[in-house]
């Protein structure tokens, strides 16, 4: 009999472990970013040791992955001898890394607010807007709820998934509904855009609100339904050089390159709007 309590005590410890496991689990989504940042830090380390000029570490919002890989290659081609290592992740997570001193040279955020967090902490130089994203409705290929325009989402029989209010794409979705004076009760507020896209492409929900760029990269799995410009919400993408960058000049060259016309074309091809428009 006396061994029961011991058993429970033992299980208690395991339970704590499982709890810890929950936080471990919660970071699975962002693990790509942490893995990325560990590569980037090792790159920086080799930079400072070997003094190999022209190695840059760029932290960028996940939605920039495709375009930045292209732009990065173009930059490397235009600046022989340079090498760019990217780390993509949620903007807020990247900002936290920079504020905490993670070695980086450039920070490109999907939200002005996140950039402000980094700026307020004195971790980055002055930022510049280089792109703008807007929102769109996506529906499953067969569009089961026959969603044609924004107002259809207010129908209580239509199952809608959006991003949670804690992440920028959720803020934007709410802004769209507010502007259109629509009362939409989403069935789920997902942790990130890709989760919304998954739910739509699996047909578990009838519609979702995502960035235009996400809809265009997933166009073989979902169908986009445009949101009228008057109701649409936009997100600004600022870019800044990290204050503690070991290659300040090169980092500045990269941000200039992102703002240059060639890069702007790559961005536009992916569905981004120019910073000016």
């Amino acid at each position: 009999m006396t061994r029961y309590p011991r058993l429970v005590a033992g299980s208690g410890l395991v339970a704590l472990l499982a709890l810890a496991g929950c936080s471990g689990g919660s970071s699975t989504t962002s693990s790509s970013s942490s893995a990325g940042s560990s590569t980037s830090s090792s790159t920086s380390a080799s930079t400072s040791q070997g003094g190999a000029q022209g190695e840059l570490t760029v932290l960028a919002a996940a939605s920039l992955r495709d375009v930045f890989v292209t732009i990065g290659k173009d930059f490397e081609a235009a600046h022989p001898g340079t090498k760019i290592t990217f780390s993509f992740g949620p903007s807020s997570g990247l900002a936290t890394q920079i504020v905490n001193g993670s070695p980086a040279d450039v920070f490109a955020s999907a939200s002005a607010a996140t950039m402000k967090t980094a700026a307020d902490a004195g971790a980055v130089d002055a930022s510049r807007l280089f792109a703008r994203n807007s929102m769109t409705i996506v529906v499953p290929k067969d569009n089961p709820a026959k969603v044609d325009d924004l107002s259809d989402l207010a129908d209580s029989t239509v199952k809608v998934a959006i991003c949670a209010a804690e992440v920028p794409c959720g803020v934007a979705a709410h802004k769209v509904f507010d502007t259109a004076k629509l009362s939409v009760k989403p069935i789920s507020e997902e942790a990130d855009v890709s989760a919304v896209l998954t739910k739509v492409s699996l047909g578990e929900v009838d519609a979702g609100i995502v960035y235009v760029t996400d809809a265009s990269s997933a166009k073989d799995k979902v169908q986009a339904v445009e949101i009228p410009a008057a109701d649409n919400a936009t997100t600004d993408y600022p870019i800044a050089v990290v204050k503690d960058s070991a290659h300040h000049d090169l980092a500045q060259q990269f941000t200039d390159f992102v703002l240059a016309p060639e890069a702007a074309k790559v961005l536009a091809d992916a569905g981004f709007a120019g910073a000016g428009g």
Partner: protein
Amino acid sequence: MTIPATSPARPGTIRGDEAALGRGPWQLRLPAAIAAAFLVLPLLALLVRVPWSTLPHLLTEPIVGEALRLSLICASAAAGLSMLFGIPLAWVLAHASGPLVNLLRALVTVPLVLPPVVGGVALLAAFGRRGVLGRPLDDLFGITLPFTPIAVVLAETFVALPFLVLTVEGAFRTLDSGYAEAAATLGASRWFTFRTVVLPLLAPAVLAGSVLAWARALGEFGATITFAGNSPGRTQTMPLAVYLAMERDPDAAIALSLILLLVCVLVLLLLRGRWLTGAAR
């Protein structure tokens, strides 16, 4: 050998054993200390970072209460379901043999190694609106499981069930079959024997297994957010709230984790207390 003398003597002997263990060889004590420190240190570090001033304010936020309530209810339901179906499954695994049973045993452990998010996708494929079972459920009865609290319970049960099954299966295997034989010679049916003789003998293992299952369910994140989505008050459990809070306000996330941790420890301590008094009776 009189009884009054032996019973009170027992706790004393056990304490003596534990003292002896404490004086064990350093080859054991050193790694034990490292293991304990490894587990405890991050928790202590978390405590240091808790924003104590905002904690009372956070605690009173209705959304936190809702998430906590949902977490406790769903984790308890998942532990209950795990017991209801896991104990019979453990019995089958412990008593049947053959290649099919070996395959089944391997499959039971799959949720342990499967990334929970993949588990969630698998659940969607089975019970989702267009899933293998979900579609007929929707077509025939108009029942859709995803994005409901039931989906939370199912997702948590999916990841928690193996903990209970494996724990109880081990207990079934080491159980002395002599008691069941004795019950048979006393005229008891197999079901009556199972309920009144076997199950009470397994109680420690069932308890340990369901505590494990409950704790795993309480911390479940990946399968839940994938299969049940995130809807505050409906499917948003504490781990989901923690994850989303981390996006906006890491301090709040730490505070929420602390609350979850404290509630978990409190429940386990209460359970332990109850069990202690139950055993002493």
